């Protein structure tokens, strides 16, 4: 096993609301090793993006704050830093240099008034003592490594002059220009069409190998997750509901919610006469107003009164590396 890079323990993030603080992330733990990809899966409002922002130190404060837990990051200088407690300046030095992030919308994540090259150069020079020329050369190398055709010319292009795929590559070039050891990718392929999506995923995997980066990949698309993940963490209403190695998530699902997510992916060869694609009824509960007991029980087909409605289930260990939060996982046959 490679060395751990990031260890998140019992992370709690809360936001001030009209009726007191609301927990957007309540007690999430996970770990990312060098060269490993963790995919966090969940619907909108499950807390997956808030978790990643907490790691970046980018929770908007106020109204948000990290209310508890540890985010231990093994920095390049050999020290283990708790990002939940570091000051803003220390976090700012880490961001971009050791921890980088790419965003969902490649169009809006690039500043429209500067060329792509200027933006890569800016990030480089923020963290490394490079001259303009050297930084520009690095930017061109970076674009080339990302498979941007004619990088010497594209480096002077404005974002609107590039296609969606090229913009996302430019964004990745920016994020990876300082060779970070941890990359957080917040749905980086959602806005792209499927062929470009596949290219970008392949690219992220390749660079991950080259830089031996740890990657946290956030998505609501289990198809994408299957493609890229070593481990998958499923979040619901701010909590981990199931986490396991990718194969176990797909083949030994223990949590009805995960099962529901898997069931709602269209697959090639599906019988069209079998009726509409199964869906999970209802929607994610509002965080200020979580149901008693298991947060998923109002939408769950396997719900039993009292067992599921009276107390919140604990996160149980199914086997090494596989945890599930379900009161009935021992009795349910989901696969």
């Amino acid at each position, binding site marked *: 096993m490679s060395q751990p890079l990031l260890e998140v323990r019992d992370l709690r993030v809360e936001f001030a609301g009209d009726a007191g603080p609301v927990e957007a992330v309540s007690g999430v733990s996970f770990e990312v090793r060098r060269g490993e990809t963790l995919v966090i899966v969940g619907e909108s409002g499950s807390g997956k993006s808030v978790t990643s922002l907490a790691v970046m130190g980018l929770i908007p404060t106020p109204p948000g704050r990290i209310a508890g837990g540890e985010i231990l990051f093994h920095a390049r200088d050999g020290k283990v830093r708790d990002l939940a407690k570091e000051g803003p300046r220390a976090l*700012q*030095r880490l*961001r971009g240099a050791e921890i980088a992030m790419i965003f969902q*919308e490649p169009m809006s994540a*690039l500043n429209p008034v500067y060329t792509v090259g200027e933006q890569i150069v*800016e990030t480089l020079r*923020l963290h490394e003592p490079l001259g303009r020329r050297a930084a520009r050369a690095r930017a061109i190398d970076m674009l080339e490594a990302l498979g941007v055709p004619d990088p010497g010319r594209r480096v002077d292009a404005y974002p609107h002059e590039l*296609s969606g795929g090229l913009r996302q590559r430019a964004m990745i070039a920016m994020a990876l220009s300082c060779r970070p050891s941890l990359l957080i990718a917040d749905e980086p392929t959602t806005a792209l069409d499927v062929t470009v999506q596949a290219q970008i995923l392949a690219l992220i995997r390749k660079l991950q190998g080259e830089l031996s980066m740890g990657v946290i990949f956030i998505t609501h698309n289990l198809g994408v997750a299957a493609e890229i993940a070593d481990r998958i963490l499923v979040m619901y209403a701010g909590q981990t509901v199931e986490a396991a190695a990718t194969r176990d998530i797909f083949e030994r699902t223990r949590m009805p919610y995960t099962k529901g997510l898997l069931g709602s992916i269209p697959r090639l060869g599906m019988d069209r006469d079998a009726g509409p694609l199964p869906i999970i009824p209802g929607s994610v509960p509002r965080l200020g107003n979580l149901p008693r007991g298991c947060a998923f029980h109002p939408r769950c087909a396997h719900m039993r009164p009292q067992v599921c409605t009276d107390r919140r289930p604990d996160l149980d260990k199914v086997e090494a590396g596989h945890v599930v939060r379900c009161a009935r996982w021992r009795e349910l046959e989901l696969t």
Partner: protein
Amino acid sequence: MSTGTALVGAPLRRPAGGLRALRRTSAKVGLALTLLFLLIMLVAPLVAPYDPYDQDLSSALSPPSAVHWLGADQYGRDMLSRVIYGTRTAFLAVLVADGLALVVGCAMGLVAGFFGGWAEAVIMRLVDMLLAFPYLLLALIIVAALGPGLTNSMIAIGIVYTPQYARLIRGQVLAVRQADYVRAARALGASRLRQMLRHVLPNSFPPILVMATLQAGSVVVETAGLSFLGLGAQPPSPDWGALLADGQSYFLTAWWIATFPGLAIFLLVLGFNLLGDALRDHFDPRRGA
């Protein structure tokens, strides 16, 4: 994926043909008027037939003629030369007053919008307070406090126009600072100052440009107004407002003294306004999208 759709939603659009909105007739007229006055200002000593301060009592109050194209005033000074030199005061006022308002207003609005909290509360309450006064009244109060004179009147007008810029840019900043590219810059280690100056400010700027142009017209009017009331440029300097005031007492007998400076004010203000309208149309995301 086509790049055509990429333009939608971008704060600063760069249509392929350049400033498309500037091709309309009204825009052309505005641009032409502004450039004409700018040119006159630059070459004033070359085109003015006389020294604007030279008195020639023998031609006092002489009507427009081949010698004095726009006539002469009560001291026999050539009106054409005085109106031409008046462009210098007008543009100086635009530069100083509009510039002052823009720089100070943008700084205030930027700080208020970006940092929020008590800084925003203090700045925006100050802005509200200034906005509560009618412009000319506020300018009069400030000039009264500072003492009359061209410099003080320009400062006064600058102060009067500052809150509008502060408000406008604060609104822009509130929107722009939420943009993904600002978050992205932050996520890649940009400091607050860098986010503010390098990412938020340039993207908040297009409406400021429009406002600066439209305000330029108002500044010309207000400067002339203060001079007309004797609080701005002092005699004998050839300021349009002062010329207008001079001509006022002779209006029935020597109409040209007041008419031509008034016309100059009208044309320059018209120029700035048409230009400003065209710029506004150009940057308006609802047009041509």
